[in-house]
């Protein structure tokens, strides 16, 4: 069983900008979803775990090895798909993936070639393996990124917004792939898509301003909100009034009509009960 232990990690970029604030998480095999708004610190946490930056405080252990002190230990078994990455110009997809496979330690050459071709096939880039990666579209590049994250035998995969730029079919393919491999390894999925967390993840956390706002199993979090979520349609102009008098956790347009969802122990007047979904959990966590 693999285990990633993040123990009281803090990181500041300047004196007044704290991007990670005393974060502690314990993640075992399976998919772990990390939700949060822009600037919450998700990418910073990802980069800190993979060793691209050092935390100011705290430690990170993977299978009981301190990977802040020795990031090399983690790198041997890591697959990392950053949110935004570039590629070398004038190098084909096959050659660049092969280069990364060598850096990963995949060998001998015949085995490496087999895995590289297999991964390109898996992400639907086999037909473009001779094409220079820097000419790929955004979605193709993202698929390339997925392929390189799976090189070798990763025990920890960290994917930051992995389905950004993928069409629904590719997104589905990717989700199936992750699901397939996540049984015996740790996969951390950082995403805006609550739906993906709901579908794929057995554990999740909501992070805001560098802090963990909520942590647990999606089903448990949903159960906690049962009977406390209420909804009604309102005029757009009345929104500020409702925001000041109720704990509005989300708002949504349904057929041009503004529907708000509030959190309350008891049903407020004019509202009707709503079945809690993970979006409610997310928005409620952010509002705490």
């Amino acid at each position, binding site marked *: 069983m693999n285990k990633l232990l993040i123990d009281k990690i803090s990181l500041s970029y300047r004196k007044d900008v704290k991007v990670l604030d005393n974060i502690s998480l314990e993640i075992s095999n399976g998919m772990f979803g990390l939700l949060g708004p822009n600037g919450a610190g998700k990418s910073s946490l990802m980069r800190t775990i993979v060793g691209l930056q050092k935390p100011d405080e705290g430690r990170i252990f993977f299978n009981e090895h301190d990977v802040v002190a020795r990031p090399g230990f983690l790198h041997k078994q890591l697959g990392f798909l950053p949110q935004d990455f570039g590629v*070398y110009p004038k190098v084909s997809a096959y050659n660049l993936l092969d280069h990364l496979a060598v850096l990963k330690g995949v060998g001998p050459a015949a085995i490496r070639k087999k895995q590289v071709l297999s991964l390109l096939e898996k992400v639907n880039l086999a037909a473009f*393996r001779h*094409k220079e990666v820097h000419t790929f579209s955004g979605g193709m590049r993202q698929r390339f990124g997925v392929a390189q994250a799976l090189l070798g*035998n990763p025990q920890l995969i960290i994917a930051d917004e992995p389905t950004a730029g993928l069409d629904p079919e590719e997104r589905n393919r990717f989700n199936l792939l992750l699901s397939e491999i996540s049984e015996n390894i740790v996969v951390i999925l950082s995403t805006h898509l609550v739906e993906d967390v709901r579908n794929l993840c057995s554990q999740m956390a909501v992070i805001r301003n560098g802090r963990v706002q909520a942590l647990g199993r999606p089903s448990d979090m949903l159960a906690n909100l049962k009977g406390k979520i209420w909804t009604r349609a309102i005029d757009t102009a009345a929104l500020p009034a409702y925001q000041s008098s109720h704990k509005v956790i989300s708002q949504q347009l349904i057929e041009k009509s503004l529907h708000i969802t509030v959190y309350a122990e008891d049903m407020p007047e004019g509202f009707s009960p709503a079945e809690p979904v993970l979006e409610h959990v997310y928005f409620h966590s952010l509002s705490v």
Partner: protein
Amino acid sequence: MKAILLFDLRQFARQLPGYVILLLLLCMGIFTGNKFNMSAGEGVEPGSPYTIGFMLGLLSLTVIFIATFFAIRMLFSEWDNRVNLLIFTTPVRKRSFAAGRFLSFWLLTLSGFLFMTIGFVIGQQMRDTGTAFHFLHYAYPWLFFGVINSLLVCSVLYFAGWITQNKMLVAVTGLLLYVLYMVILLFSNSPFMAQSAPQSPEAQQVSALIDPFGVSAYFLETRNFSVQQRNTLMVPLSGYWLLNRMVAVCLSFLFVWLGARSFSVHKKIKKTREPKEIARPETASAYLPVAVNTGKTMWLKSLRSYLGLDLKITLRSISFVLSAIALLFLCGMEMYAVIEKGIRLPRKYADSGLMATTISGNFYLPAVLLVVYFVYDLYWKSYSSRFYMLERTNVLSSAKYIGHWISVSVLISVYTMLLFLLGLLFQFVYAYPRIDWAAYLGLLVFDTLPLILLAGFLVWVNSLFTKPFIGLGVTLVLAFVLAGPFAPKLLSYPLLRFFSGFKGAYSDFCGYGAYLWPFVQRWLAGAALTGLLWILTYAIRRRRISLAGTVMSLVCILVGTFSGIQFMTGYVPRSSGKQQDNNAAYELRYRHYQYLPQPVVTDVVTQIDLYPSQQSYTVDGYYVLRNLTSDTIGKVLVNFTDGFIIQQAILDGQSIDTAVSEVILRRPMQPGDSLQMKFAFSYKWYPVNGHQSFNAIVENGSFMRISRYYPAIGYQQEREISEERIRSAYGLGAATALKKPEDPRDNNWGFINLKMIVSTEKGQTPLGTGELVKQWSKGSRTYAEFSPGQPVPFRFAVASAAYEQQKVRYQGKEIMVLYHALHQENVDHLIDNIKQTMDYCEANFGPYPFRSIRFAEVSAFTRGFAATAYPGIIFMTENMVFHADIGPGREQDVINELAGHELSHLWWGNSQLSEDEREGSAMLTETLAMYTEMMLYRKMYGEKRMRERLAVHQQLYDEQKGFSAEEPLYKVTGNNTHISYSKGAIVMVRIAEMIGEERVNSALRNLLAKHRYPLQRPVSTDLIDELLAVSGEEHHAEIRKLMMER
């Protein structure tokens, strides 16, 4: 446009690195202004408007590098920072954006040059330039060089940047501009070129027009300036200079316009080649993880993968191709120039030594810049392409550092190989197919190895930083300091210059001589230090040092220490300031000896034992000193040369053990008395100090003007400091003035009876001055005794080499030519010319004073003359005239010039007409030798060819006359060779035309008859008197005018 301009300027002003860059440029300017004195001539002040003008013109070359830096930084910043899609979807117009960006680019470049100029002014004012500060003297050239050159360079880079959208191509364009300039300078009227390889007027005019920096035009416009004009006038913007500047401005506007038109918001999509097929997997199977191995074998594979990727990207790039072409073009043009040598000197044989040293001299500096760029490009590629997030999360990415180092090393090796092939091509084209591999080995040792080491060091430096442009800036500065042209001045301790190239000589006699192995030793010391930096940095990052790391560190320390100590063996720090102090102290203490009677040396009996394989020799001997004055001599000032070890020196029973000694005689010398002085001293030079050209004891082909290093008696006036400003700083009065022709004659000839024995190692022939008396071997050494058989001036030299010989008897005299086995081409022709010269001089001037004449070739480690004459022997350097290509169809027979000029010195100078040191003495030696040379040339080749040679001398004289105070021929001093040689030749030929060659020769005969040793000592007016005596009165005014007027 204004918004873009202001934004860019504000961005620059907000960042600390910008100020650091400006401060660095300021410091560079101060250093240049303070330390560099590229004096164009003796009378031209360092602070003169002329000197400031061309210094700023040359300094404006740095605009290339400043502009290239800003171009890379600014022209692509929208795409680099990925804001292009935001900026170019605003209403900003393309042309406005392009114009604004150009203005900010140009203004920042100009600011950089302004700071450098300010530094230059400060640096100049910190020392005494001999001229008061005038703002306009700096502002004027700054405007016409700095502003226009920066406009031109920026416009070219701007156009290149936006038409190619490629940073490397921008860098290569900068390099091409530099190459173009260097090539054009070869054909210019630069005062630094004019003396060594002056170009034809046509070449100079073309050079003046096309020189993008305007410096060639500046030189051409000032070619007729006198010294006074150079010191007082600001060069007017006229003629070629005006034309050049106008062309530069017009071209600038054209390039700006073209650049703006080329500007596109979209990146070009490049075509890619069809890749080869790779086998497809048979089925799309389930995901199968594969075990990884991060051991040493995979690390090596990672290294190979980095190397493969780097070379795949770089070698196929247009940038690499263009930079290789630029280097080939630059070195090719330099090779062409060094073979063809301009109008004054003949074509050289395109031998391997010449090719290799030319490549080494011109490849290194551009290669340093290319190394800086390639290291930057490859090292930061993953960062700038944002690939690093994928790369750095792999263990084996640690192979990146060494991988990139090896990649750059391969690129350097490819450049070296291309230049080697170019050298071979030149040899083939110029029909000199003999390949000397030892010469080309120098490319590897002196260029490739230090560049590879520099690459390793710069990769290490880049690894210390997290931002690419800081890495680039720091590595640029370090490369400039450690490997740039000013490294010898910036790093006075020679061991630290292990990143520098080598610009020494190559000799067919002894290759690179004693320099090759010490260069390798220094390189090893540098490699050890670089290795240590890598190991320690790696250990610090990992927070531990492995056993392997510890062992390697120890090896580095041992190798570095041992190599460093070996290299520094014999090091003697040299300081021009200290030398000056010593000379001033000498004058203050001993000048009064000028007025005290001193004995003269009348006899020298000496043995010189040469040890070429050890770069050393010993001297043993004694003087007979005589009091030829009418006064009593109570004390004698004895001077030994610095750098020699006195083993023993005894005068009057007293031991002398310091370089300068006052010996109080126990019994004063009465008039006519004599004393014996015994001495023994030794000399050895070490490669770390370099060798002296006229004291070149080398493995093979040694030559020493050895009389210079013998003990001298009395006050040595040549030690006096000549510059008045420096003299007054030391509290010294006026320097000893050179005697005038009309001053009383000194009938103390200073001639000696000389007997010398020279010995050398077996396999070499020892050569001395005078007639060969006998030769023998003893043990592993060869001995030869020489004596002129008559009194000669205190001036003698020795040589030693493994020679081939050719000997003939002619008219009762022995003619012998000693030469390197591979330099036989011109020997027969030389012997013919010797015979003709002998015939002419004996028929017209008088008998040849000796029974034999030898012409001996010496190695290229001796520089500074094509040939030099001593009693009975003439020494010729291998790489100037003797081994020239004067095959059929060549216009200039330098062998004829060599024989005619040098052999005639055995009449004009040496033991026959030997004048004392005064104004006009050079006329009696060099002018008369030039006259003889011209007459012989006419006799052999006819009037037309002689006129052509004379026209060259006219050009040489015209080009040089503006750089020193003009002297009349009869008062010419030794420094003004353009007067004593060139003007002298013209004047004497003119006089011969006027009164007839026969009459001129008769005058010269009479001069010799009256003034040869030991009769009355000649002065220059004696020649005028003799010419007047043999010519009609109608010619007297003209003769006086030619000889006595400026």
